[in-house]
């Protein structure tokens, strides 16, 4: 499934991330370096699993760092 970066920003907001943080994330840089914390990340992952029926407990999922990584993962797996 093709997900735009803006769609992913919307999902981050839905996961409870502050809108200004979600909007300002550099899609090519690690999310954890930009203020996404230890609650945001699993909440975002839980939302993606629920919404797109993907499983994020395999080795590939553990290497997803950036919004671009997630967009590519969903394109290939969802």
């Amino acid at each position, binding site marked *: 499934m093709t997900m735009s970066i803006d769609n992913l920003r919307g999902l981050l907001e*839905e*996961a*409870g991330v502050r809108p200004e943080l979600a909007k300002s994330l550099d899609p090519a840089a690690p999310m*954890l*370096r930009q203020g996404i914390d*230890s609650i945001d990340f*699993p909440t975002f992952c*839980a939302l993606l699993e629920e919404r797109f029926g993907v499983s994020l*407990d395999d080795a590939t999922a553990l*290497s997803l760092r950036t919004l671009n990584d997630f967009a590519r993962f969903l394109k290939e797996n969802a």
Partner: protein
Amino acid sequence: MSEHANVAAMLLARNRERHPEKAAYFCDDDTLTYQALAADAARFANLLRAHGVQPGDRVVLVLPDSLAYPKAFLGALLLGAAPAPVSADLSREDYAFILADCGAKALATWEGSPAAEAAKDVDGLDAVLLCGPHGPWGLSGHSSELQLPAMLPPTGAPGLMLYSSGSTGRPKGVMHRQEDLLIPAGGWGGVLGVSADDIIFSASKFSFAYGLISSFSLPLFFGAPAVLFPGKPGPYELFAAIARHRPTLFFCVPTLYNMLLRAYEPGAAGMDISSLRLCFSAGEALPEVLCREWTRTTGVEILDGIGSTEALNVFIANRPGEARCGTSGVLVPGYEARLVDSAGADVADGAPGDLLVRGAGVSSGYWNRPKKTQETILPEGWLVTGDIYARENGVYIHRGRSDDMLKVGAHWVSPVQVEEALRRHPAVLDCAVAALAVEGLVRPCAHVVLAPGFEAGQKLGADILRFARGQLPPHMCPVRVQFLAELPKTPTGKVQRFRLRQM
């Protein structure tokens, strides 16, 4: 009186004689030698005594992991008082409860902390010692020699206490003898092959049993320096601390390993982990995939294990060179285990059963909670862990919990407390919190029955998640809201949270 010697005096004397000028602790830019640690621990004991603290009294420690911590902990032990390290992240209400519950005689904390605020309303708390990174103000004015010989706690009094979350949300004091601190060194420390050549770094804090053993017992027993990290452990900060202090042994918890692995870029600036010879994980089960990927990506072996505050601490662990990802490993020397069914009979190999453990370091009981002690520590010394395990050829594999408690980010979470907070949201008529596996790790999931007039939807779900974040500490916040028409209940109306688990 106990037949044992004062544990603090023994550990300090051994290191002072062996290598007085060697570093005992590193913290940021500071180094504390064994000689200086012994002197300041004695000063701390003298300071406490000057404030009227006696053997057997409880001394609550609410401090960041700093050089002040081992000084305060050892100082209380030298006096025969019971240090009670408590997490530095609790609310004023929690501190008020704990200080009153244990009848604290003294509190060591930082100026303006919620614990210092709470102390103002606690009767009998005579001494509030405000500490900087190196210890309380005025410490240097006390003698570096003990004014009285090191003492032992009175018979029956705890040597130390640790607070652990209870199923009702109220923390309970877990009592231990001073000598319990040494048991993990001989057993678990032997498994890990700890020696004076190691440098130990625990991301788990001093106030948790796992952190206490990793940052206190192992380092002082083996004469291995330890790194203390005062801040909130985020992945980049931990990598920076590892690159700077070059530890050989790293102790951490699965949620943080998950974040560290996501952040890890081999060869990147500030990510030199080449000093590590071994990583250990405890606090919750380490997912098999995370275990494998960590070792594959970093090249450093990671060993999973399980311990508890009551058992102080790790009683089942993988062995270096023989790690089996997806398992907790085999028994640590000094502990015995049984897996039993609901009638208390031992189950067959491979079948799931309730894990009971027994060993010399198991708690003598909960402070002022005889009923809870009776339920948890059975006759003949068997400790009911609440964990379900299967055993295959001596290897233990975690199968979940037998109660509703959740272990999230190595913290105990009582569903009751999360549910109480969620019910304050106007849309929530009723709710139940149960475990949800995300990336193989346990997270709280809120199952919500809506009040009349509210409609289930993504926006309302997000609003409830945000509301919870404003009410609860991070590890207690649900990561998902699921709407239900009604909660599963027994005929008597008790919520069946186990039916809502998604593991």
